[in-house]
């Protein structure tokens, strides 16, 4: 029996491939293999002999099977190793190209400020870009002869001959949405109105179309001090700074009274803007308490309701926050610019996760 063991273990060790191994298996432990034949001889043995030979044969069978399995695994490993040795890739090659999309900074900034004002209970209102001169001017306390009208560089729509209505305008500000919202929703009211506006002006810092967000809050006891707080909170949140100093400067807008222009404390260092520190002041918005005539134009009783309004340039906010130098480039659709200043699809600004990365 030891001979058998030595013979087959030797053959298994020497087997070159799986076929040879199978031949050995059949010869050794197959149904008609040598070990099986020996098993048959057990029946002819005495019980005493059988008690010795039986377990020994079983052990031999197990040992050969294990050796076969081990050799088989060893051969498979060797074959795999051989295959893997030939499977080499230059992994520095580039991947299949995939396009990287982006969002425009105006969209991003608009979502950011929507998130902030939503927290303060302001909803988002919209209005038409082409509007009547009543909504754009008269309702906002800017009568026809008012110098502010001439200063606004208004775009007018063509009037067909025989149509004697005053020409419609491309809205020069988002303020007409104030009136439309008051008419529609009444008071108390808290809205922001983001959107495109138009002025006939084109130079380094002006484009004939740009974007504004209008804010309006009407209630029975809203004061200019509330306005200042709202703007302070907004600026801190938008620019993601802990503290910021705003300066209210008396100014004049026909639709607010008192009116204030608002400056923000900042510093310019090597062309980099820092909000909230330094000795410079930068004008960022116009605001004031809504003029009683404007409230009345919106169909609300100015003896009962009062409130504030403000207007901020969205493009300008984006320029300041993200260090974008030239307003004109916003509307050039230059792929290099879109990729550089754009935002990824999953950069969704939230107050809990942070507005920017």
């Amino acid at each position, binding site marked *: 029996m030891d001979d058998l063991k030595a013979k087959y273990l030797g053959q298994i060790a020497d087997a070159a491939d799986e076929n040879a191994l199978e031949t050995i298996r059949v010869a050794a432990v197959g149904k008609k293999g040598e070990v099986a034949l020996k098993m048959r001889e057990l029946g002819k043995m005495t019980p005493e002999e059988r008690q010795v030979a039986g377990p020994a044969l079983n052990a031999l069978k197990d040992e050969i099977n294990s050796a076969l399995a081990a050799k088989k695994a060893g051969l498979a490993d060797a074959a795999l190793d051989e295959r893997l040795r030939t499977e080499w890739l230059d992994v520095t*090659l*580039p*991947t*299949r*190209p*995939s*396009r*990287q*999309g982006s*969002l*425009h900074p105006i*969209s991003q900034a608009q979502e950011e400020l*929507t998130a902030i*004002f*939503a927290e*303060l*209970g302001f*909803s*988002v209102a*919209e209005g*038409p*870009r*082409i509007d009547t001169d009543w*909504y754009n001017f008269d309702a906002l306390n800017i009568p026809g*002869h008012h*110098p502010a009208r001439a200063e606004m560089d208004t*775009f*007018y*729509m*063509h009037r067909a001959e025989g149509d004697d209505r005053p*020409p*419609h305008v491309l809205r020069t500000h988002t303020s007409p949405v104030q009136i439309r919202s008051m008419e529609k929703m009444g008071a108390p009211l808290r809205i922001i109105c983001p959107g*495109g506006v138009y002025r*006939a002006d*084109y130079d380094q810092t002006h484009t*004939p*179309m740009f974007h504004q967000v209008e804010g309006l809050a009407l*209630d029975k006891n*809203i004061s*200019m*001090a509330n306005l*200042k*707080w709202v703007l302070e909170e907004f600026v801190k949140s938008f620019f993601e700074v802990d503290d910021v100093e705003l*300066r209210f*400067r*008396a*100014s*004049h807008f026909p639709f607010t009274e*008192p*009116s*204030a222009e608002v400056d923000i404390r900042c510093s310019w260092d090597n062309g980099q803007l820092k909000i909230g520190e330094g000795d410079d002041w930068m004008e960022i918005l116009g605001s004031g*308490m809504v003029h009683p*005539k404007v409230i009345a134009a919106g169909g609300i009783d100015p003896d009962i309701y009062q409130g504030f309004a403000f207007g901020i340039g969205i493009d300008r906010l984006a320029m300041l926050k993200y260090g974008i130098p030239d307003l004109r480039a916003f*509307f050039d*659709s*230059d*792929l290099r610019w879109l990729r550089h200043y754009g935002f990824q*699809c*999953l950069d*969704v600004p939230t107050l809990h996760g942070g507005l920017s990365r």
Partner: protein
Amino acid sequence: MKFTLSWLKDHLDTDASVDEIAETLTDLGLEVEEISNPADRLKDFTLGYVKHAEKHPDADKLRVCQVVTDEGEMQIICGAPNAREGITVVVCKPGMYIPGLDITIGVGKIRGVESFGMMASERELELSDEHDGIIELASGEVGDRFVDWLAANQPAKVDPMIEIAITPNRPDALGIHGIARDLAARGLGTLKTPEFAPIAGDFPCPIKVTIDEDTVDGCPLFSGRLIKGVKNGPSPQWLQDRLTAIGLRPISALVDITNFFTYDQNRPLHVFDAAKVSGDLRVHRAAGGEVLKALDEKEYTFSAGQMVISDDNGAESIAGIMGGEGTGCTDETVDVFLESAFWDHVQIALAGRALKINSDARYRFERGVDPEFTIQGLHLATQMILELCGGEASEVVIAGDVPDHSRAYKLDAERVQSLVGMDIPESDQRQTLTRLGFRLEGNMAHVPSWRPDVQGEADLVEEVARIASLTKLQGKPLPRMTDGIPKAVMTPQQRRQQMARRTAASLGYNEVVSYTFIDQASAALFGGGDDATMLANPISSEMSHMRPALLPGLLQAAARNQARGFMDLALFEVGPAFHGGEPGEQHNLITGILVGNTGPKDVHGAARGVDTFDAKADIEAILAAIGAPAKVQILRGAQDWWHPGRHGKICLGPKKVLGIFGELHPKVINAMGIKGPVVAFTIWPDEVPLPRKSGATRAALGQSDLQAVERDFAFVVDAEVEALTLVNAASGADKALITDVRIFDEFIGGSLGEGKKSLALTVRLQPSDKTLKEKDIEAVSEKIIAKVTKATGGTLRG
């Protein structure tokens, strides 16, 4: 509006510094735009004394001077002809910046001799153009600051100039007196109001004045007088200095005097050369067509109704806007007629706009000057003319009267506090208004004549607030409108636009924002460009029409990027397009374009030209993201800027178009100047129905543990038969059992013959109650084959 510090001090008794004044003005609402303070750039220069001067050993024209300075004796080489012993000079020491040369002077060697700094000429210090020699001072001690010497001896040269922006509501601040009043109201000094003494006339005025009855509403008051025997010519230096300092060109004494009062008191005046006036002056309305050459040497034609001042010869002056050249004063003028009138601001604004004249007079009258000051201004100017030009004044002639401007509003001290949110005691509020010239009777505030802008109680609030200083305003939290967590604020449509943007960006598109006005030709290619959407005053012909679609702007952007070498593009825009010129005739669109290849050449060979199915995949993804139903129709027959055979309209019924995708018409691509294939999609997000259900609950998930079965079928159909027809027919065979039908192969022509194609589809069957047996599957298969062959006229491919 520009003025100098010394001019301001004519009206304001104050010790405040320039910086203090500037800060206060800005805070008051008179925003300082520029301060030009010569003292700032001269502050380091001190006086020196030339103790000894001798010829340079190596240069005939140079002198070696020993100069005593506050830092000891210095050797300075100087080439000025007047550099000599015994004169007091302005020393520029090494390391100092010389503004007129724009250099920082150092220690140098001039022809072998050391020189420590320089002695300055007026030009080198930007005091004048004088450069014939160095500054020689008749007084002053070594070490004195030069600016102090100038302030004492030539104050005009160090007079700081301040420029402020004037908002339309503050005509009173267009006079320096008005600016001083604001500062005094804030407590920055005391307003000087000199005694007014009218100048009596010595003889009757030979020129009479009248206002036509139909013109009195535009010119309530017109006054004037003759001053005879004047000597015109250059005005005195002080007056020239003042005008020059605020950017005006001195012309002659008479003109300079009118300009002086324009700025000093916001009182525009006009001087006629009386010798050139024929007969009397009459203020009236133009009949239309009259032509006048004005002082700016341009000819203007009046429209009917515009106000004009005429003499016997006809129109001589554009009332309240600009005088005529024919009656203008010259250096030879001997007799002058001085005019001071009050004009209605609306009529001046309209006439000025119509005639396109921007003059100081128009600017002021259209904002509103002080009607009460009309006659006083006439007397003050008379006095100055008599002082500077001599002559003899006539009696004053007056037509009309000061219009009634009296009005009063209630000062509600509590309302002021409630609106502003600042604790301003009533006594302070009253004091502010009084200092600004309001007259308080009880709590009624009578508005001063120089404040036409004050038209209601709200204006009183503004006055009190700005004088109290909004800078001091402390923010107060705005209470929430409702307690608890704020609700969502965006409308479904706003959410859709946001989702569409972010989905498009995730699909690799770059968002653009383009001008909503484009050129007429591009607009016309996409169904626009008509008169209704045309601008009356476009900024250029490239921006003349409101866009009818987003496609033209995107295609223009693509062409620009291709010109920069970017040939493969994926761009999208979300925004309004315009189908008319009335408010509301706009609709939101979501449009994307794919141009060129899907990507650059690559080792994997993955790049290929973009095709209709790229656009279809993306429009389907975005429609799904904004909540469009999955089951839609795809129809043809979109507008002619799409490729006629390679586009589809995604519809809910023939009239409800949610979007269009496909190739653009080759002619359009060509016209827009783009290379390579262009596919595009457009979505009308507002057409996508809002979900009917409310709440966030999903339908229960019907999962079956039973084995699903897939079976493949191939049908031979006519080439024009659409795959969706097969899919719909197959799906309809057993709606309960069939969960998915998918086309997986298309084969056209070949052995099938001309005009035929084979479409292969996989049908997935999902039983829900019992496992499918072969005969069940057979039964469904037969139904599928029957339905499809009926719907398409095709046959099962054997």
